[in-house]
Structures are given as C-alpha cells and as structure tokens.
C-alpha cells in the first residue's frame, strides 16, 4: 500500500482535476440519508428506477430547475422531465437554491397536480350570456388580445388611462408588471397587499424605511414570532427550516398566537393573548429592558433619531443623550407587566419571563410579524412597530442573529428597459383619505366605484380572486356584474376561481413550471436571484429544439404573462406612436419585438454581478447557467449596510445638517441592485441625501427621513397622527371594551398548513390533506352556547352571518373563536366549468329591495367523486370544503396603514333549524354603512397634508408615479 501521505496527495490531485471540469468529485455525505440529490452534472440524464412498476424499470430524466409559484418564498424546484415523453413526472427541491436548500413544503411538489389538473383552463375563453351565467366559448388568443388591446388603446388615447387596472394577488416576480404599466403611462397597479401584510409592513416602514423584516433565524439565540411561521407563515419553508436549526442549536422560541397552532406547540414560551393586545405586551417588555438597563445604549445613541425627537417633538434642540435617556425611561413606564397582563388576559409573570429571555438574547434576537395580529386589528401596524422596538433596543438590527431590513437581503437586477414613472395618480387605488396607506386600497374598490369616483374600462385580475379572498365579496359581485362600472373584466389565471366566474375573458396562465419570472426574497443574510422558467421549453432547448413562444411547450394554449404583456403592448401601440412599443422592442434586433430569451439574456449578462464569471467557469453563457441551475447567489454576508462608510467620491460639496444628515451634490451611483428603497428628500439647495454622520464618519444610515431608525416618526406626526408617532398601543376594534357582552372575537387570518388562498385548490394532494375549516371554539364557550364538535353554529357579523361546524378545543382561548379563511371555495350552480376537487356547488339568491340588497348563498352540493382524465378524481372521499366566511365580513380599513382589519366582533349561537352548513347571508347595504363608518375615521390628505401633496414622497409605493402628480389638485405645494 502506498504511504498515506502520498495517497492523500493523489486523492487531492484527482479531486482538483474533476472539480476543474465543473463536476462533482465527492457526492456528499448527504447521500446517507433521505436528503440526497442528484449531482448537478448528471441533471441532463438522470436515471431512476420506476417505483410504480413491479419489474425493475429505469426511467431517464432531464432535471430542469424552476421556482415555486405557490407562495412568495420563491423556493427552488427541480422538475424531473421524462426524456422520452417530454413530460414533467415530478417536482422536488433544487439543492442549488440558497434560500430553500433543496427542501420544500408540500406545496412545491404539488405543482405537479397543478400541471395535470383535469379541470385546468387550457384555452382562452370568452363569456357567453350574462356575467356569472357560467357559459363560455373558446376563442383564439388573437381575438382576445385584439379586443383587449383596442379598449386599452382607446382608454389611453382618450385620457382615461386610469380606467385600466391590473389587480394582482401573488406577484411572484419583482417589478416586471409594474414596468409594463409604467410603459403604458398609467397608475393602474392594484395589489392585494392591504388585505395581507400592509399592517405588518407599516410598522417596519416607519422604523427603518424598508417595509419588511429579514430575520436571521439560523443564527439567533431568541426568536419571537407573532404568527404560525413554523407551519404556515409567510415564508414558511425557508424560515421554518432555519428556525428548526436554531432550536436544535439551543435557541429559544417565543410564540404569540391565540391558537395552539403547530408552531405554538413547538415554542419554549407560548403566550395566547387577547387579540389586539400584542403591542401592549411588547411595550411592557421594552420598558422592562430599559428599566433594567439591558438595552444597548451605544446602539440607541448612534442609530436612533432621538435628536430629532427631542428637538422637534419635544422642542428641546441640542438636548443631550442623557436627557433623552431620562425621557426614554419614562416613555412607556405606564406599560407595566400588570397592565399588559390585564389587556392580554395572561399571567404577568409569564410576560416577565419572556422579557428576561428576550433581554438575554443581546443582538441575537430574530423577530417577525407579518399578517396575524398586524393584519387583524385596528392599529395592528403598531404590533410590528412595537415588536421591532425590541430589536432596536437590543441593537439586534442588521447583525448576525438579528433582524435585517429586507432590502439588504434581496436582489433585483436592472432590466433591459426602464420606462419613466407614469404621469397619473389613480384615486381608485390611492384615495385621498388614506395618504399613508402602505398599499392600494384594493378591497375598497367596489365602494369607491360605487361612490362614483371612477369606472373601469379594462380590469385585469391576475392570479387574484377578490370575490373570494377579499372581505365583502357580494359587493364585489355587484360591481363585477355591473357593465357600467366594469366594462371589460379579464381574468388571467391558471385555474378556475370565484372571480373568474364573473369575467368576460378567462385567459389561461402557466403554473410555476410553465412561466418565466425573476424572483428574489429575503431568507437569510444573503442576496440571491431565482429564475422561474417553463421547464418543458427549457428541456426542449437543451435537446436543441428552439422554442420562441412558451405556448409551444405548455399544455394546451396556456401562456405566460411576460410574453403576453409584450404581445399586448405591441397591439396597443402597433406603430409606436404612443411611445409604448419602444419599451417592448428588441435591442439585438431594433424595431422588432422583444423576446423573453433576449430579455433574460440581457439581464444575466449585464445586470447580475458575478453571474457571467461563474457561468464562464462552467463553460456556459449566463442565460444557459440560469436555465441549468435556476438560481444564483449574488452575495452573502451582507451585514450592517447602515454602518458602511460613504466613499469620499460620493461626498462632493457635502453638508451636514443639525440632525446629522449629510447631503451631497455628487450624482448618485447607479446601483446594481434596484430593490425598492425609500427616497428621503434632499436638502433645500438641491443636494441629495448621501448618509448620516456617526462617530465622525459619514455612513449610509437607513432610508428614512432622518437617516436613522425612527423611534419618532415625523411623517406620522406631520400627516395628522402625532399621537401615534411613537411606538404605542392602539386599542383594537375588537378590544373587550368595544364588544357587547354577548360578542366574541373571530380570528379568520390563519392558514391551513398546506393551503394558500385560491392558489393551491387545484392540487389534489393538498386538497386531500386540508379541505375544511371548522370553527375553533373553547369548551367553556361551547358549553354556554350548547354546541359540541360537529354541531352547527351561526356566526353573526356586522353585515350577515355564516353557518359552520364547531370544533370544540382547548387550543383556543375562551372568548375567541377562529376559522381559517383559506377554505370555502365554491362555483355557481349551472356553470359549465369549475374546479371539481375543492369547489362546492352553490346557489346564490339576490333579493333587491327598497332598503338594499340581501344575498343568500346555499350549498347545493359538496365535492365528490367524478370522472375525468385523472383517475384520482374518482377517489375523492371528502365532501365538505369549508365555509366562505369572508363574504360576511365588512371592510375595515385601518385609517393609517390602510390594512383591512380582519378580526371580527361576532355573535355565535346554535344554528337555526333550517340552517345548513356553509349557508351565507349578507346585507350589502350594511356593507356600505360599514365602509362609510370606517371612512369617517380617516384624516384625508387635503386636511392634513403638510406640503400640499397627496402622500409623503419618501414612502414606498409599488408603482410610483411621477413626482408632479403627488400634488393635491387645487392645492399649491407648501414649502417644506
């Protein structure tokens, strides 16, 4: 035998030779357990033994990566494409993906169900008969696009551009569609975010400029979750796997959740507070940290805007840090543990215990709230604001184990064309009453249109289902069935949904393995770029068959939006006279239509640092690299960007103001990462903001008006809400004081672990796992009402009621009931089309009387076995698909964040003798009254704007219009 040292050198040389070819020498220790992945150099021809045949039968696959489209996590998927039949046989995790690391939740592999769904929409359809009648005729893409394009063109040329609206549920990409709308010159973007995360976002936005957190769970010592992240939270999979790893390391998990969720069951400390009391708890903890001196004084002195608070809010310019500390000590002194315990209905000692755990975290505190309490309550945005206060006190911000601003852990490359900001302001999405709304007031659309504020010429719903997902769905039906209010409704969707039933065109869109997108999300302290691609198109390309149109590779005539928007834009502006077409033209072939290959080739070759070199090392072009691996990690270990020094070259003619903000005349370097960043104003002499002065250095700081973390928000103070400018506690609309003696709080916001809104209803595996939503009710409440598990109850809201089965459980606190609003799908009786696995058949009755319209929904039939191209549909054993409770919720827009406050004050009683499971009744006149009542809580811009504008310019906005249209009509801007 050779000498061990020689052997060592010999193996080392062999490894280097193999790896120099871009191949794998060591297959990896992961192969001894189930997390084994095919080595990437064998992705072209991977052999597996067929598990479904008794004899040994090898199958050859081409493994093609894409990005999951079933939630916003953008986890990597690997499609196993059968090389013989060019069909996707399964989807598993992409081990190359730095966010999901090859691991997926159930929704990822279930993409296969969506591909093979026997009820999926495969061709463009046009309504026959009245809207909602359920009859459809197949039309060509050309016919549909010509009609739609002509209407859009007419609206734009007639100055009615704001009558074109694109309403998106799951974006699944970073900015492509906003640029389409900007190219059309319209303020037509409408997102679902104000029914989702605007409350959570607002609290973060007012602290650090960025509107979402990026907790570094993997390195945290203490994790605080106000949600059910481990099972169903927003970034369920990438976050959950890192939380689990942290716990294995010994990190402590604190969960605030009124339900004993699967997440709560894993917690070291579980608090089930009275809904809406969360901010009181966090303020008590904050005061405890301050009173016991366990906050990071140095961090607070450097990075908080305490000088601005002292100077402007308290009128004490020049105050010292010591004077501020005296103020700080008193700021939340009335938030004792005893006070918080009374509000929350929990034990004060339990709160003190978690306060001490948090205090022990130091800078390794990772915290997160996204929907949950922030989405449920009036003032819910203060839940995220007070939660992040704990990070800000401990200095656990943008450091290992702490919580980062999301914009630093995300990468958005510069695209081939960047159209200018549209010169319009759309009052239907950004009404004057909500100058500080984090996102479009999308869920108010029927009421705003009903007020006569506008109408829609062309209304796109894209992977969105407002009739079902939004509150007050009957008001949506009333709007969508009124041709004077919505003249053309186009539903872009991969699958049938309640809203598409009322569309004029239903246009089939691809699922996660059938479309192109670029997608990046904050999963840890790194920046990565995920590439979603139509895997059969990519597979054909690998085999040498070029595909120029994704429809050629997708099932039926299913398309993707990127190509659709390019085609539609050309038809809107065929000769380029409107200035639209130029944003969709090729650069390689001037005057010709841009193709998606060129679009992504341009980005990958020019706009993703490090990608060309990495691709070249493997002998690939950048686009080929991304088609092969599906993801690229641009940077890792970003660290505290706020503390980075501003280079001298960026400090030309720099001046520093009294608050330490540094302004410069040096032009702003073009960033390679165009992730949305707030834009604080420059100085009065035309300089731009370069950073802030800290410890004698000019550093980047935070993208807030002060450049620092904003304990006190001057924006809130100057825009009409001075009482909420500091982190504080706002009593919820479901606070016990607001409830009648016989009312309970209904929590509808939680997910079922494998289901996500409409998106997953076309996945049979997921439907089999989760298909109903009983009402969680505590035994004490159940006994009072006289109901047992399985018994029917009527849940009465402000505008109607729904009938649901009870689930009696001690897993929820008394006085609160809970029903997940991710269930209760339906299709209209008599409709030709619909999703058969999870949509019940219902009858709608509309009773229009002199005092309003009353709607009744009654279930005709649950789901059951049926014949289709998939033999599994004959094996459907469930019939109950839950209750569509959102129909019975009025709109509750928070007057500041604009967030729909989901929680409901309800009365729960035994069902009436004639009641049936899933019955719904709603009076939409009461919906209107609720809308007006919440509108009255607002402080409109024309009353409070300090500068004559509609909205603080620095605040983020998904599609930001040109600055000049920020001016309020009829008001001259005041000099700041």
């Amino acid at each position, binding site marked *: *035998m*050779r000498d*061990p*040292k020689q*052997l*060592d*050198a*010999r*193996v*080392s*040389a*062999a*490894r280097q030779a*193999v790896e120099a070819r871009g191949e*794998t*020498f*060591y*297959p990896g*220790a992961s*192969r*001894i*357990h189930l*997390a084994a992945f095919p*080595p990437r150099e*064998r992705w072209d021809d991977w052999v597996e033994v067929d598990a479904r045949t008794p004899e040994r039968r090898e199958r050859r696959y081409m493994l093609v990566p894409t990005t999951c489209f079933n939630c916003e996590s953008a986890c990597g998927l690997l499609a196993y494409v059968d090389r013989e039949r060019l069909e996707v046989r399964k989807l598993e995790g992409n081990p190359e993906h730095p966010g999901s690391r090859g691991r997926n939740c159930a929704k990822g592999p279930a993409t296969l169900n969506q591909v093979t769904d026997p009820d999926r929409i495969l061709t463009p359809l046009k309504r026959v008969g009245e809207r909602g009648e359920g009859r459809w005729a197949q039309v060509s893409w050309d016919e549909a696009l010509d009609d739609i394009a002509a209407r859009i063109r007419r609206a734009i040329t007639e100055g009615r551009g704001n009558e074109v609206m694109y309403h998106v549920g799951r974006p699944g990409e970073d900015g492509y569609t906003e640029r389409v709308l900007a190219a059309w010159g319209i303020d037509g973007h409408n997102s679902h975010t104000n029914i989702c995360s605007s409350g959570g976002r607002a609290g973060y936005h007012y602290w650090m400029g960025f509107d979402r957190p990026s907790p570094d769970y993997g390195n945290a010592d203490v994790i605080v979750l106000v949600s059910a992240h481990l099972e169903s939270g927003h970034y369920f999979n990438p976050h959950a796997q890192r939380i689990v*790893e942290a716990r*294995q*390391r*010994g990190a402590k998990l604190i969960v605030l959740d009124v339900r004993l969720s699967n997440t709560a069951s894993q917690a070291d400390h579980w608090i089930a507070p009275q809904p809406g009391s969360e901010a009181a708890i966090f303020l008590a903890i904050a005061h405890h940290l301050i009173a016991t001196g366990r906050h990071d004084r140095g961090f607070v002195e450097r990075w908080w805007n305490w000088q601005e608070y002292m100077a402007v809010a308290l009128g004490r310019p020049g105050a010292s840090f010591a004077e501020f500390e005296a103020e700080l000590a008193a700021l939340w002194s009335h938030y004792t543990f005893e006070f918080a315990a009374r509000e929350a209905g929990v034990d004060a000692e339990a709160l003190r215990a978690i306060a001490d755990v948090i205090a022990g975290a130091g800078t390794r505190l990772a915290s997160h709230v996204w929907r949950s309490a922030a989405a449920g309550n009036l003032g819910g945005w203060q839940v995220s604001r007070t939660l992040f206060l704990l990070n800000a006190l401990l200095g656990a911000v943008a450091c290992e184990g702490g919580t980062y601003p999301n914009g630093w852990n995300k990468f958005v490359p510069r695209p081939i064309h960047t159209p200018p900001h549209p010169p319009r302001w759309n009052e239907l999405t950004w009404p004057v009453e909500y100058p500080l709304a984090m996102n479009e007031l999308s869920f108010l659309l029927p009421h705003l249109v009903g007020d006569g504020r506008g109408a829609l010429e062309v209304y796109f719903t894209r992977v969105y289902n407002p009739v079902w997902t939004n509150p007050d769905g009957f008001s949506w039906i009333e709007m969508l069935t009124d041709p004077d209010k919505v003249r053309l409704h186009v539903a872009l969707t991969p699958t049938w949904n309640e809203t598409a039933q009322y569309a004029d065109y239903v246009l089939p869109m691809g699922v996660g393995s059938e479309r192109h997108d670029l997608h990046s999300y904050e999963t840890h302290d790194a920046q990565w770029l995920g590439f979603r691609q139509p895997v059969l198109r990519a597979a054909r390309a690998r085999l040498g068959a070029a595909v120029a149109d994704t429809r050629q590779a997708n099932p039926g005539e299913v398309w993707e939006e990127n190509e659709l928007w390019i085609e539609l834009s050309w038809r809107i502006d065929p000769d380029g006279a409107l200035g639209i077409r130029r944003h969709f033209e090729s650069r390689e072939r001037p005057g010709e239509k841009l193709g998606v290959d060129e679009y992504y080739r341009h980005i990958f070759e020019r706009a993703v640092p490090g990608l060309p070199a990495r691709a070249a090392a493997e002998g690939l072009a950048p686009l080929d690299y991304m088609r092969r691996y599906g993801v690229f990690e641009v940077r890792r270990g970003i660290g505290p960007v706020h503390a980075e020094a501003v280079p001298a070259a960026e400090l030309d003619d720099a001046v520093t103001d009294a608050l330490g903000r540094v302004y410069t005349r040096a032009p702003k370097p073009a960033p390679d990462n165009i992730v949305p960043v707030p834009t604080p104003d420059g100085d009065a002499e035309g300089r731009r903001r370069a950073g802030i002065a800290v410890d004698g250095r000019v550093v980047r700081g935070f993208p807030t008006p002060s450049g620092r973390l904003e304990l006190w928000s001057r924006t809130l103070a100057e825009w009409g809400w001075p009482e909420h400018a500091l982190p504080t506690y706002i009593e919820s609309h479901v606070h016990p004081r607001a409830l009648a003696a016989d009312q309970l709080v209904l929590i509808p916001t939680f997910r079922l672990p494998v289901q996500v809104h409409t998106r997953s209803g076309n996945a049979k595996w997921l439907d089999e796992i989760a298909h109903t939503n009983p009402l969680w009710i505590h035994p004490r409440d159940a006994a009072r009402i006289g109901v047992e598990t399985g018994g029917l109850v009527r849940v009465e809201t402000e505008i109607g009621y729904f009938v649901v089965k009870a689930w009696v459980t001690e897993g929820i606190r008394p006085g609160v009931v809970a029903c997940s609003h991710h269930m209760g799908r339906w299709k209209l009786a008599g409709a030709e089309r619909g999703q058969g696995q999870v949509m019940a058949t219902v009858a709608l009755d509309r009773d229009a009387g002199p005092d309003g319209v009353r709607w009744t929904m009654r279930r005709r039939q649950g789901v059951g076995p049926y014949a289709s191209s998939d033999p599994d549909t004959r094996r459907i054993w469930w019939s109950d698909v839950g209750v569509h409770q959102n129909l019975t919720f009025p709109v509750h827009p928070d007057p500041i964040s604009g967030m729909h406050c989901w929680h409901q004050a309800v009365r729960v009683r035994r069902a009436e003798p004639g009641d049936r499971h899933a019955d719904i009744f709603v009076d939409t006149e009461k919906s209107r009254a609720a809308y007006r009542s919440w509108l009255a809580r607002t402080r409109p811009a024309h009353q409070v704007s300090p500068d004559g504008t509609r909205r603080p310019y620095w605040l983020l906005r998904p599609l930001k219009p040109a600055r000049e249209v920020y001016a309020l009509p009829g008001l001259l801007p005041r000099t700041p």
Partner: protein
Amino acid sequence: MTEALRALGVLAEPPCSEHAAIAAALELPPPPSADEHMAVLGFQLPPYASIYLGAEGMLGGEARDRIAGFWRALGGQPPREPDHLSVLCAALAELAGADPRIRTARAALYWEHVASWMPPYLAALRRIGSPFHAAWAATLDAVFAAEAEVIGPPSALPLALRAVAAPEGPPADLDALLGAVLAPVRIGMVITRDDLARCAAVLGFGLRAGERRFALRSLLGQDAGEVLGWLAGEARRQADAHGGGSMIPRWWQARGRAGADWLDGLARAAAGSPAIAG
C-alpha cells in the same frame, strides 16, 4: 491526511458513479455493486459508531447523543447522522488547521468517536468483507494510524469505553444474554450474521434466517452450551487478533478476553441443561 480521510469516508456511503474515481485515486479495487454494499455495510456491519460503542449495541441512544454533543460543544449543529463513519471522516477532514482549539477538537473527535471503535470494526470488515472492503479497511487502518501519529496519543481512554461495564454473573434472562453478546462494547467482539452462519456450520446446527438476535436465539435453543462455548472461542480469537499499540486496541483485547471468560462460565453452567427456552 484530510483528503484521504474524506475520500475513504465517502466510500462508506451507498455506491454511485463517483465512487469509481475515488476508489481509483485511493488505489483500491473497483467499488462494490449496490447489492454487495448493502450486504456488507447495510446488513452486516453498518458503519455507525453507536452500534459499536452503545451499551445496547444498537443505532442511536446515548452513544450517538454523545457524538452529537461534540458538535454542540463546538457551537455547531450536529449533522443528521453524526455517528456515521462517512460523516466522522468528513468531520475530521473539516477540522484540519493549525489553530490549537481546532487541533484539540480534532484529537477529541478522533480518539473519542472514531478510534474508539475501529479495532473490532475494521477487523470484522477484513473477516467478512469483499476484497474491496478488506482493502478499504486496510487503507483506513493505515490512514488512521498516520492520523494518530499527527494528533498524538490520547490522554485518557475514550468515555464510551469507560462508561460500559463488561457483563458479570448469570444473565437475568435470555434477552439479557442476547443483549450482552450482541453489544460489542460489552462483550468485546463483533458478531455478524456471517459469524452466526459460521457458528451454525461448525456446530452442525440449523440456522434460521432472520436478524441476528432471532438467529442467535434459535441457535441457543438448539444447544446453549455448545453455542456459548463457540462464542467464547470467537471472543478469544477476536481479542487475540488485536495487536498491542495504543490503549484502545489493548482495551478491546482485554474486554474480549473478559467476555470470553464470562461466556465460558455460562457455557459450563449450561452444559447440564443444553437447551435454553427462548
């Protein structure tokens, strides 16, 4: 020796196409087929430290927890299979470096969790393995010896060896006897399925197909005295095969001889009542 260690460790994993190049670089015979691999490392000698160091002679338990604890002590997260030979070799390779703390950690990992079970394990591999496995075991032995030279001698006997006592006195019942005989760290030898087949062949008994505990129970049921006597001889043979060297092979030798003495006593006692009811 980091590269050779890692490469040798990888060969403990299920075979795949990469293994051919690795085996060639290590100058080993062509790697086994999946079936051969499963026969040796799946059924006979699973390469998990806990099986050879745990008082129960089974996968997992305190022995595995102890190895997982090593990672936690370093501030890291334990691998999913912390006691698999492949993982341990990769870990030794990872812990290369001049930092004194790294050197200490590497020495602790090597002596406590690798060297502690290699003598009986590698001997068993040579005894029952294919030509590839015999060569692999010999190379592992040589590389580990070189590693030991670099690291320096252990300061104490590994905890796993100190923590488990040899069996004493008559076992409480047949299950206790089976548990002791099939736990290498207690009896001082490794009994594989092939060894039991050899026992049956030598004694002319019938071997019932099944896992080791089942097969040994059946053999004892045929003539306990004869079988216990054979086991005592096997323990002595395996003990004698361990050379001198460091304190660890010496410990295995002593434990094997003690085990042989205990089995001899049981065999004598059983001679009057040859069958043990199962």
